[in-house]
């Protein structure tokens, strides 16, 4: 019995007073519509396949990103020119090795301490210095410059959990402030390995496409040595996705495996074996996520510093209005 005039009109369903029955009808209509949509899609794709045309690509959040004019083109001469005289040019050209001083906020808890001990294994040439309560950041920076370090990393914690990282490049370098989250130390990672200290890992930097992203990528690269020790097979990855930087530290191995080729494909009828190279990864070290809070042009100076990029309320208003598909890195 047709209770509604037009079976496919959802708004007519309100005529039915019984809630159970009404919901049933709505479910049926929706199911029908969904099946029709699916059949349509299959027909379209079949048609395209027959024609030999490519199928349309599905939309992802990344593909819907608002177009950013600050994407750096490959080998942009202006950008290369600026980078040849920026703060990282010396370190990235390999003339001097980096030297990182890691310290924490005053009175760190055990969580921060274990994290910092793991970080020492990640970054080559890094030393951890305990921070006294009375030492200011400016004094830490002075000390680091005296000792000849090229950067200072300050790990901050809140409520006994590591929550922020400040990276100050010396002597005039930029200061980057990150929010640190999703920290997993190596002992909580199943099947983890132990990283070799004073090892120069290879670097994988993913998705640093905008001008700002490129600058951050360079600053992170300058913490590592330019000539990685490939025989140690350790890899540090900074993967940027939607403005979050994911850090992973792995050891990789290439293994040769002999595989039997299927009997039907071989011509002579004898079982053939193929050598395949398989990559296996073992995770080392900590795993954490960084989000950029702000970049200052000089050394950390909250009151008198100049900010290259800071996430204030003003940024939310652009010509087109705030868009949550707009990313910075």
């Amino acid at each position, binding site marked *: 019995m047709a209770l509604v005039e037009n079976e496919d009109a959802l708004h007519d369903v309100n005529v039915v007073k019984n809630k159970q029955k009404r919901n049933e009808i709505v479910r049926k209509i929706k199911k029908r519509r969904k099946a029709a949509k699916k059949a349509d899609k299959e027909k379209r794709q079949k048609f395209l396949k027959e024609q030999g045309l490519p199928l349309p690509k599905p939309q992802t959040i990344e593909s819907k990103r608002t177009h950013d*004019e*600050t994407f750096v083109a490959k080998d*942009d001469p*202006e*950008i290369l*020119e*600026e980078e*040849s*005289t*920026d*703060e990282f*040019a*010396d370190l990235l050209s390999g003339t001097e090795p980096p030297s990182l001083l890691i310290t924490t906020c005053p009175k760190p808890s055990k969580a921060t301490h274990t994290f910092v001990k793991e970080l020492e294994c990640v970054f080559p040439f890094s030393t951890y210095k305990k921070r006294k309560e009375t030492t200011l950041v400016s004094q830490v920076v002075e000390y680091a410059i005296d000792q000849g370090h090229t950067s200072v990393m300050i790990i901050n914690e809140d409520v006994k959990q590591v929550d922020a990282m400040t990276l100050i490049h010396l*002597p*005039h*370098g930029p200061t980057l402030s990150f929010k640190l989250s999703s920290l997993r130390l190596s002992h909580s990672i199943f099947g983890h390995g132990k990283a070799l200290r004073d090892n120069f890992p290879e670097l994988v930097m993913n998705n640093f496409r905008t*001008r700002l992203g490129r600058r951050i990528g360079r600053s992170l690269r300058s913490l590592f040595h330019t000539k990685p020790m490939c025989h140690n097979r350790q890899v540090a990855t900074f993967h940027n996705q939607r403005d979050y930087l994911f850090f992973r530290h792995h050891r990789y191995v290439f293994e040769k495996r002999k595989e039997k080729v299927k009997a039907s494909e071989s011509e002579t009828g004898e079982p053939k074996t193929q050598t395949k190279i398989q990559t296996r990864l073992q995770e080392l070290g900590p795993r954490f996520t960084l989000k950029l809070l702000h*970049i200052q*042009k000089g050394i950390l100076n*909250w*009151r*008198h*510093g*100049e*900010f*290259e*990029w*800071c996430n*204030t*309320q*003003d*940024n*939310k*208003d*652009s*010509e087109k209005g705030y868009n949550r598909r707009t990313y910075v890195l």
Partner: protein
Amino acid sequence: MDREDSVRGEPTTERGNQEPHTTLLVADEIGQVKEVGLRSADGGKAFGEPSTRRLAKTGIGAGVGSIRPNAAVSICGLPWKGGEGQFAVGRRCGRVEVVETIASHSADDSADCEASLLFECGLPVQKGGAGAGDLLGLMPLGAFSVASCTTSGVVEVWRPSSLDGNPEAAVRLNTLASNAGQPSSQKLDLDPGRPAECFSTWDNLVAVAGKANNARVFDLGAPSAEEPIFHARSAKPNELGIWEKPWVTCCGFVPGEGGQLVALGTAEHQVRLYDRRVKRRPVLSVDFGENKVTCLCFPCEEGASREVWCANATGQIRLVDLRTAGEGGEGVGASLKGALGCVRSLTRHPDPAVPLVFACGLDRHLRVFDLRRRKQVKSVYLKQYLNDAAVVVAGGEPAGQAQEEEEEEGGLRRKKAKRARRS
């Protein structure tokens, strides 16, 4: 179609309505000067795609570790040239070069034209041991000269002896000379690096101020130009007796007051107004933001309105009303949102009929704000840290009202544009 042509630098004079109605020269940190042309779209309602061209490239050493001696620090129009598209570009090492906008002759595809040397200021040889410093800025002084200031406080006035000749230093003033003789009752620890952080001119007056260095106003027309005619003092210590050491980061003479009023922005996020006629302490003090105030700009060239647009190191641009501040009024009013980083320079369009303000800074964008709507109208990505911007062609309102402006600068080009529009 048109956009690509103009970006490549081909002449667009045939298409009258595609010519930029506002052209800006932007100085950036690696020493380039870019010409940015803003054109209207949608019948004058919005801004279409801008065109950018690189103008001056210099062969000086690039520098290392982000200390770039050939960074273009300041651009100013040469007042004796009458706005024929010649601008002086000051580099951090002290070299000042002339740059011509490509407007006056047919646009060449090779946009990297060499800039010719105009003068070099602050050479150590000339200083006689006053201490070298970086070039701080260039500003036009009166109708015939350009004043330059270095970070060590040496102001030089450059005047051309002949119409086409290169200017020579007519006056050389060490603004800090008066410091040497003074006994320092309060221990002002002069940072030897940057005693002068900002500098402004008005007619024959020059104001210089910096860290531990309150504003001093010098009258360069007067016979005894070495003594400041006005030396500002900091605000009184507060109830706790705390006295803020002066650190002035930007200054400007309030227009329409004959150089009597000076507005300053400090590193302690204060905007202060000094009245030379009244007293040495600030007449008004407004707190703005939490970071140092990096530049000031006045919305009206002439007129009694006492408003200042101030920008700070985090990219906040706010309107400060110097009349209502400090009397229980708000003080800080409207804001222009959109800048993502430190704003290095705020320039107002010289034509009062065009309510545009241009902000450029460390976020690598040149932003155009409409002062009436108080919104960002256009942002141009220019790839480098931007230091200064100067407006070249004082164009009128897009699409139609340009014909009313007869006395604008850049005469030849504007006439061409007008002819193209009328035909």
